[in-house]
């Protein structure tokens, strides 16, 4: 590897020779396309990229990327990626999976990978359903959802993945959706560039088992009124004419207001780097994809990255004790000689 510049590539270079096996019309296709279109724009070589996934429809993702990849077991991708990223900090590690994989069986690994700020990019495809096992409700399914495993309707309050991630100390938290390639690419790029753990929730349509779940939000006709784009340093406004906005009251309540009435100056300015909970409040603005919902980056703060800290401790230890002398180690306790 004597070259120092990364070769120019196109989407094709990043596509593996494997036939893509998602249902026709599945939102996963557009996410795959967004990633494959993005990769050539990043300053990275194919061999330095690894996709690690669990099990589920979403988790088939690595097979379609012409990079290194591991399709592991259900829920454990974050744990496996933790080891890989710690061992090989120079690699770019992605973790890909579904809402079941990451928030049901894999919930604990997810919150810990975020807390530890491991240098991985987590892409969670949220289709609010278990696709691969043919349609049971998931931890993000709405209350009342009728599925094979909830014929009388689900009675479980869904997780709000953004809230979970923020409650788990995530340093980068964002949301995007499968109907907007530009937005996906932009969010993925930011997540990729973030040092430490980046969590991205992607609203994804499962047209077989949960068709139209995000239509109220992502449908072309609905977007203006329903999607609240978050832009760092900008007032939080939306609507066809940016006529609506979000404001904070001294009673500690965020409200959606009419900008004209409330006054443009009173619109809350988005601050990704807010360290004490604004992102969380924004994540609570909508109770589900039937209310105006923020998308974009909720939080992006710089904290020490785990692998780097590990490296630093090793360096410190080596400064202090030299680079590990095996013969000396074996003699580090009391020793005696027999002649």
């Amino acid at each position, binding site marked *: *590897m004597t070259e120092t510049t990364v070769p120019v590539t196109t989407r094709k270079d990043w596509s*593996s020779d*494997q036939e893509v096996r998602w249902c026709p019309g599945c939102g996963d296709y557009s996410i795959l396309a967004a990633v494959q279109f993005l990769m050539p724009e990043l300053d990275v*070589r*194919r*061999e*330095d990229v*690894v996709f*690690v996934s669990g*099990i589920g429809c979403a988790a088939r993702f*690595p*097979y379609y*990327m*012409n*990079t*290194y*990849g*591991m*399709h*592991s*077991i259900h829920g*454990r991708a974050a*744990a*496996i*990626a*933790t*080891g*890989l*990223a*710690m*061992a*090989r900090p*120079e*690699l770019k590690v992605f973790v890909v999976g579904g809402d079941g994989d990451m928030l049901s069986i894999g919930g*604990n*690994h997810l919150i*810990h990978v975020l807390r530890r700020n491991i240098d991985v990019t987590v892409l969670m495809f949220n289709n609010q359903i278990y696709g691969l096992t043919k349609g049971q409700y998931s931890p993000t399914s709405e209350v009342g959802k009728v599925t094979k495993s909830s014929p009388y309707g689900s009675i479980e309050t869904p997780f709000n993945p953004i809230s979970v991630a923020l409650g788990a100390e995530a340093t980068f938290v964002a949301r995007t959706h499968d109907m907007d390639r530009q937005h996906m690419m932009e969010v993925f790029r930011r997540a990729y560039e973030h040092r430490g753990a980046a969590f991205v929730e992607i609203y994804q349509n499962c047209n077989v088992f949960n068709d139209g779940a995000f239509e109220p939000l992502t449908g072309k006709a609905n977007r203006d009124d329903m999607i609240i784009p978050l832009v760092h340093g900008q007032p939080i406004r939306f609507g066809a004419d940016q006529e609506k906005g979000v404001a904070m009251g001294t009673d500690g309540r965020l409200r959606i207001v009419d900008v004209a009435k409330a006054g443009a100056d009173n619109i809350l300015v988005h601050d990704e780097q807010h360290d004490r909970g604004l992102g969380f409040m924004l994540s609570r603005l909508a109770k589900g994809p039937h209310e105006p919902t923020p998308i974009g980056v909720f939080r992006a703060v710089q904290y020490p990255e785990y692998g780097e800290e*590990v490296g630093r*401790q*090793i360096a*410190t*230890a*080596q400064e*202090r*004790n*030299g*680079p*590990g002398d*095996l*013969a000396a*180690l*074996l*003699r580090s*306790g*009391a*020793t*005696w*000689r*027999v*002649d």
Partner: protein
Amino acid sequence: MADTAARTDPKQIERVIIRFAGDSGDGMQLVGDQFTSASALLGNDLVTLPEYPAEIRAPAGTLAGVSAFQIHISDHDITTPGDAPNVLVAMNPAALRAELGRLEPHGTVIVNVDTFEERNLAKAGYESNPLTDGALKGYTVFEVPMTSLTRQACEPLGVKPRDAERSKNFFALGLVSFMYTRPEAPTIEWIKAKFASKEKVRDANLAAFHAGHAFGETAELFDHVYEVAPAEQHPGEYTNINGNTALAWGLIAASRLARMPLFLGSYPITPASDILHELAKQKHFGIRTLQAEDEIAGIGAALGAAYGGHLAVTTTSGPGVALKAETIGLAISLELPLLIIDIQRGGPSTGLPTKTEQADLLLAMYGHHGESPLPILAPYSPAHCFDTAIEAARIALEYRTPVMLLSDGYLANGAEPWLIPDVDTLPDIAIEFATAPNHTDADGNPAFWPYQRDPETLARPLALPGTPGLEHRIGGLEKDEAGHVSYVPEVHEQMVHVRAAKIAGIARDIPPVVIRGDAEDAEILVVGWGSTWGAISGGVDRVRALGHRVAQVHLTHLNPFPANLGDVLRAQRRILVPEMNLGQLARLLRAEYLVDARSVTKVKGLPFTAGELEVAILGALDD
């Protein structure tokens, strides 16, 4: 009596077994360790057995709080911590009550008589004082006011009496060191170093140690002192080592020998945690340790690191192995090198978390779904943990497979003198990673097939992420040689057979079993594995000393078995398999070789004694 016993020449004895027992807070493990070190420096052969309660600190003075440390020192090669102690040091009534039953008949008891007052007697469940009610008839009892003498010794230092009392374990150490003529200097040095940062404590401990020693010299209690001559040992440099340290060092050595950085993904659990602690300390070897959120994450992270080209390890005990089962299955399917280290303890469930047992062999062998074979190794002594770690790494790397290493609580904490190996003589276990395509596709383009195997070892090529041109995907679904997912029935059947053949084939690459004792014409063969080696060897030797012909085989490789094992077994008249479980190895041998292997079992959280095995072998000879 100027001519006191203590001033006569010491009496030479071949060996002695001393058991220190007191409250968890009394520091018995600490003085036991130091007595061990001093004896090791003297050149004795020795074996130790620490035993402590599951509670952090059970209420002081209760039976549940008793902590004990047994040491067997000898002028010849020994293999066990001894059957019944010759000497019991009991720091309080609870210790006496809990431990007296183990003492040899007519053994020696040294008690801290200061503690034998009503409250403590009651806490120990004594209704009357055993020192006065005749309960100790037949034993040689020394009543020593250790607490008050320690207090007195510390008084000049200005240490408060309550603080001074804490040093009474060093008084006991001084006394016993005197009785068995241990040199004082190393212990004094050690106290100075260990408590360097806490002056007061250091001085109190020194004072107590001297006082104990002096008490032995001046009090006219002892007829004579004892000396245990150095054992004959291979020349070289020795250190005293316990199993967990030896394992940790073995892993570090393996990482050097493999020229791969070491990675440990682990979750704390008794009795395995100390391996994590030791490796976390040795960061300057470039070791990465992750205290994971649970056992599944521990092995998951290790698997990720293995995929990244590190020598990857996960350490745990039974409950953790159970949790790791699914990921072990993935590692078997991915065919990545990975060490899974199980320091076995008493089960099932939480069981006896601080006690030893060997009941995870069948779990190691069969505890994953589907047909999922993996190699299993077990060290036979604390020091052997070092070699076994290297051997396990060698097999894992060469065959690209997870490997199970089964140690146990007894090996983990028990210590023995170890002839420090010359690091230059250790084997090179480095492997080659793929750097170029190994295949040509239908269109004539070079391709990398991650499951195109070495025809001899059946190992697959490993291409590390970061290697240009070899990008590929692996996963837990069934796959063909090219690494592509395949549900073709014949491909699955072939892969199932190949994975089995790969592991079975390791038998070609491991040493044949060697028979200890009477290789020819034995009346009985005793087969063991793991930490029972010392006790079995002792038992076998005793039975041979009685004139019987006894053969012994001790297995380090439990899957696959050494290639000649079947022949060895089938040539025997009787086969006896002692295990600290209900007969797990015996089941494997019976199924594999159809030989009538009989079990001797002990499932008490305690190791076998040589005496128990002597009895068992003699019993089997009568069948």
